[in-house]
């Protein structure tokens, strides 16, 4: 019998449609994978097995009666940042202890309305702050990939590290994720999976715990480009509960896959050739360029002059917004409370006990840059730089560039407990050097696995598109996938 958990969403849909399998069977196969693997990988922080089985049963019944949604019967993992009614939802933080929302996020509502099945909640960096999933209250997630000849545990990337690890190790057919500075694309690159971060406003943020509201965007991590296209079609919607969600029709993204690239212009930004870039990354990038040439696209060198300022500007804007968003966790309305001598003492003790070190650090940075006398020098300055970064992209798109090709990350996955990164937060932040510009400009970005490095670890290429032109990303992403093939971790767990 075929291993049902190795099917892509598109393949599973076809088998369900042909009545070869049921959603109950598919769901049970994933639940038994989770049971066998989660103790080792730690990808899920909560498994909702009963809910999954009853959703799968209901899906099979709907199917029998002729009602078939776009994701009918497909078992998904949900990042712990999304509110799912009456379930675990803690953004992988201690401060939300025992919080069970009485409401459902818009993105997950859309998924369930399309017939999908919820397997559980996925581990992540606390409040989506991190690039390694080591900042979780529930402990680190292990990458299903290991370097050749090494038994060392590697990080799955972050912040959506549970999502990337679960998709790569067949613990779900696809996973929701969120991306504020690279949190979908970097973990996808580290695990040989596909990650789509849509245009800001494409998916509703309602019911998603806020990190940096002007940058946060929901998306997904998938086995291949087609699955990412299928999932985004359901996740994207205009939502009256999120005024920044955009009222534009949601296209059938899947239809873009397989379209010819002939005559399309691929921009190669020279500023992404950063100092000290490894030869492996450079070679991978060149391979991508060659694939597009072979596909009939035109390669154009472009300039995005403010690239180098995106990361420092991000580390003003994101912590500033985080310090404000996270002010709500005060021990009064939900989550943890640590008693104190008076109300202020209660707030301080609760927050000190409830937040992890990285979250505290970012709250401190944010509070500092917003404090009296510094607001203009830091926050306003960063928002001006952001205007310039966005203009860089607008200029190249106005020159006729259809899509921009870059590496996703400066390296492959690193070890859990990497000393250099642990000793200097800025080193960890540099993981997002190629991805963060996209969030600063609100653009869509897609990471597609493109090859393995000399250690046998996956690397990704990133495609950056015009606002709301995710279709072009799926079209172009499929070219990489066709040329590079699929990458699957060797099972050791």
């Amino acid at each position, binding site marked *: 019998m075929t291993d049902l958990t190795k099917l892509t969403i598109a393949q599973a849909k076809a088998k369900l449609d042909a009545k070869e399998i049921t959603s109950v069977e598919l769901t049970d196969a994933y639940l038994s994978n989770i049971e066998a693997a989660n103790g080792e990988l730690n990808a899920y922080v909560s498994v909702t097995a009963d809910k999954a089985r009853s959703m799968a049963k209901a899906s099979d019944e709907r199917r029998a009666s002729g009602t078939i949604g776009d994701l009918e019967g497909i078992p998904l993992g949900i990042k712990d940042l999304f509110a799912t009614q009456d379930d675990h939802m803690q953004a992988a933080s201690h401060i939300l202890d*025992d*919080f*069970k929302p009485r409401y459902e996020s818009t993105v997950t509502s859309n998924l369930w309305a399309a017939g999908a099945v919820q397997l559980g909640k996925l581990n992540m960096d606390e409040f989506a702050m991190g690039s390694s999933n080591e900042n979780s209250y529930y402990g680190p997630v292990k990458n299903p990939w290991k370097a050749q000849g090494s038994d060392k545990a590697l990080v799955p990337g972050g912040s959506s590290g549970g999502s990337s690890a679960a998709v790569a190790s067949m613990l779900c057919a696809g996973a929701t994720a969120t991306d504020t500075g690279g949190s979908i694309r970097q973990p996808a690159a580290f695990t040989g999976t596909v990650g789509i971060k849509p245009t*800001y406003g494409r998916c509703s943020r309602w019911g998603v715990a806020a990190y940096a509201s*002007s*940058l946060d965007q929901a998306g997904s991590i998938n086995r291949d480009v087609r699955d990412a296209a299928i999932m985004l079609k359901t996740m994207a919607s205009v939502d*009256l509960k999120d*005024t*920044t969600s*955009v009222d534009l029709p949601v296209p059938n993204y899947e239809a873009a896959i397989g379209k010819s690239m002939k005559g399309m212009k691929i921009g190669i930004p020279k500023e992404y050739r950063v100092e000290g870039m490894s030869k492996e990354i450079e070679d991978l990038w060149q391979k991508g360029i060659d694939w597009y040439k072979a596909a009939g696209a035109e390669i154009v060198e472009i300039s995005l002059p403010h690239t180098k*300022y995106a990361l*420092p500007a991000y*580390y*003003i804007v994101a912590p500033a917004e985080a*310090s404000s968003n996270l*002010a709500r966790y005060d*021990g*009064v*309305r*939900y*989550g*943890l*409370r640590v008693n104190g*001598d*008076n*109300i*202020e*003492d*209660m*707030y*301080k*003790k609760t*927050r*000190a006990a409830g937040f992890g070190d990285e979250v*505290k*650090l970012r709250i*401190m*940075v944010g*509070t*500092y*840059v917003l*404090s009296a006398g510094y607001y203009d020098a*830091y926050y*306003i*300055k*960063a*928002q*001006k*730089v*952001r*205007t*310039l970064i*966005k203009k860089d992209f607008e200029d190249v798109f106005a020159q006729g560039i259809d899509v921009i090709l870059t590496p996703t990350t400066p390296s492959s996955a690193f070890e859990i407990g990497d000393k250099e990164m642990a000793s*200097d*937060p*800025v080193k960890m*932040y540099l993981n997002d050097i190629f991805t963060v510009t996209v969030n*600063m*400009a*609100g653009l869509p970005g897609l990471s597609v696995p493109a090859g393995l490095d000399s250690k046998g670890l996956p690397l990704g290429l990133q495609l950056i598109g015009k606002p709301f032109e995710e279709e072009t990303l799926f079209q172009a992403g499929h070219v990489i996938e066709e040329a590079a093939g699929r990458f699957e971790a060797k099972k050791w767990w």
Partner: protein
Amino acid sequence: MSVDITTVKRVAKLARLAVSDAEAEKMQGELNNIIGFIEQLSEVNVEGVEAMTSVVDTTMRRRDDIVNDGNKVDDIVANAPITEDNFFTVPKVIE
């Protein structure tokens, strides 16, 4: 620019975070690393550039001025650590 330990403690108070002396010291080093990193922006000439307020060009939608949600007292207090008669309770604020 760099922050001293007094500033770290002042910012921690503003952020309502209890920090020990050892934590404050650790944070001081990390904060200075980050501040050093973001100082790079001083190289950028932003004269005449408008600060971004919205990354996507949209007009803010308006909704009808009607009540469309509410009467959910139980839901609202359901997750609170301590409640009394549908109120959140906190330590005494006024002596």
